[in-house]
């Protein structure tokens, strides 16, 4: 088993794990994408039963798929075939677990239909607090300028340093030492710059599109308490992630000129992982444990299958996910499709590029 099959196996396990625990990453008055009037629903017997069934079904599905890919895995002779087994496994889990979620969503809808105690839920009504100053509600767009200094530094290092770079330069590092080298060329030297430009563009777009993203539950200012603060923290974390990724590629660029200790490359990676942990902490602190009050808008119809947001009248491209941490797109907005296709194109280009580079 070498590095690539370890990475893909870990990814596989992580994806399976995320699907199994998914229902626990929502507001307590949201169950499988279905909204209720208060948090009490979470601990009701019916809700517990739906979650238990989901747990049983999602674990069974994961076990079956894991068994099938294990057979493939152990019968494969090449590394490529082993990676492929896990890749197919990831797609199979994605599809099968989504179906399990949709079934749970339908059970929840049925439970909601017969649950008469939904007093706080209202149809077609929303109350907005107009007195929140813009600065408090939305983080300033100017913060994206923080992505520029490191990008400019990398460009400067690339052009000024080109002359003093050796003919053979280290292009990849393991935990302890450089493990891949290339002949010096402008293509190789500017590669970190291009990657940084793409990272900065994705981070800037995510930052700008999520800075006004509404909470997944609306109705009145107390329907999602502290959601503005949560949104701001997430925006800051997005920006910091971009900055630390930029530092990583700046370090690669510096590594072309002079020796850089391999451990230095891992510091930004570790910080990025810590930021991921921070997202979980912030999520639990400002979303999960919050208790809503007042009228809650019943907008289940806008959440297709409890997970895809489709609302033509909503100008937001990004909205908080109903289940799971982070944001999802409003599929009724063309900009959302452009963003998704952009990400897909980026992934495909990266995969094809790395394939041909080999």
């Amino acid at each position, binding site marked *: 088993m070498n590095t690539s099959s370890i990475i893909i196996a870990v990814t596989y396990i992580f994806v399976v794990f995320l699907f199994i625990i998914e229902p626990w990453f929502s507001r307590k008055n949201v169950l499988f994408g279905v909204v209720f009037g208060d948090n009490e629903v979470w601990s009701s017997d019916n809700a517990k039963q739906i979650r238990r069934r989901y747990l049983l079904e999602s674990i069974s599905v994961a076990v079956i798929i894991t068994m099938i890919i294990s057979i493939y895995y152990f019968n494969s002779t090449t590394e490529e075939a082993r990676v492929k087994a896990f890749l197919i496994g990831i797609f199979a889990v994605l599809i099968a677990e989504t179906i399990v979620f949709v079934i749970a969503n339908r059970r929840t809808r049925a439970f909601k239909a017969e649950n008469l105690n939904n007093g706080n839920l209202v*149809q077609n009504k929303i109350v907005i607090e107009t*007195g929140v100053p813009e600065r408090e509600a939305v983080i300033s767009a100017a913060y994206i300028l923080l992505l520029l200094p490191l990008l400019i530094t990398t460009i400067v290092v690339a052009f000024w340093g080109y002359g003093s770079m050796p003919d053979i330069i280290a292009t990849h590092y393991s935990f302890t030492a450089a493990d891949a080298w290339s002949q010096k060329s402008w293509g190789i030297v500017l590669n970190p710059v291009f990657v940084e430009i793409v990272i900065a563009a994705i981070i800037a777009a995510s930052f700008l599109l999520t800075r006004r993203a509404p909470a997944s539950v609306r109705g009145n200012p107390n329907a999602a308490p502290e959601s503005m603060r949560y949104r701001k923290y997430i925006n800051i974390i997005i920006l910091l992630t971009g900055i630390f990724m930029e530092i990583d590629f700046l370090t690669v660029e510096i590594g072309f000129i002079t020796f850089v200790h391999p451990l230095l490359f891992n510091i930004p990676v570790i910080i990025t992982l810590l930021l991921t942990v921070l997202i979980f902490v912030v999520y639990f602190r400002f979303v999960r444990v919050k208790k809503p009050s007042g009228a809650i808008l019943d907008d289940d119809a806008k959440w297709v299958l409890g997970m895809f947001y489709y609302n033509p009248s909503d100008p937001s491209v990004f909205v908080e996910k109903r289940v799971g941490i982070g944001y999802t797109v409003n599929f009724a907005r063309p900009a959302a499709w452009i963003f998704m296709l952009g990400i897909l194109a980026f992934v495909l280009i990266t995969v094809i590029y790395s394939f041909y580079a080999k």
Partner: protein
Amino acid sequence: MLLNMDFASDEPIYMQIRNGIVTGIATGKLRDGDPLPSVRTLGADIGVNLHTVNKAYKRLQSEGFIEILRNRGAVIRAGDSEKNVVQFLEIAENSLKNIVSEAITRKVDRAIIHQIMDNIFDELGGNTQ
């Protein structure tokens, strides 16, 4: 101030925004200098098209209730609204004509309509006498 929106109402959304803010000024919940959210923020919060919010804000501006600041939302400037009293009275007379016509048709006494008007004035804290 809390702005109540009803998506099922016959009243257009931009009028609901406009009327909500005018009511806020009348009741003293909104005072001169109070900030209003930017068009984008309010649109995102309510979940309606930015043109809808823009239409409401433009109207409030032309009626002299608010001042629109570039990129920073808007603020209440109701002092200007007194300048447009003539225009308001013309519009109000038309609306009242419809109400009074219906009252006459339904044989509702004028004293009752007067009483309702007084009650609304009291409720909103306006100058009653």
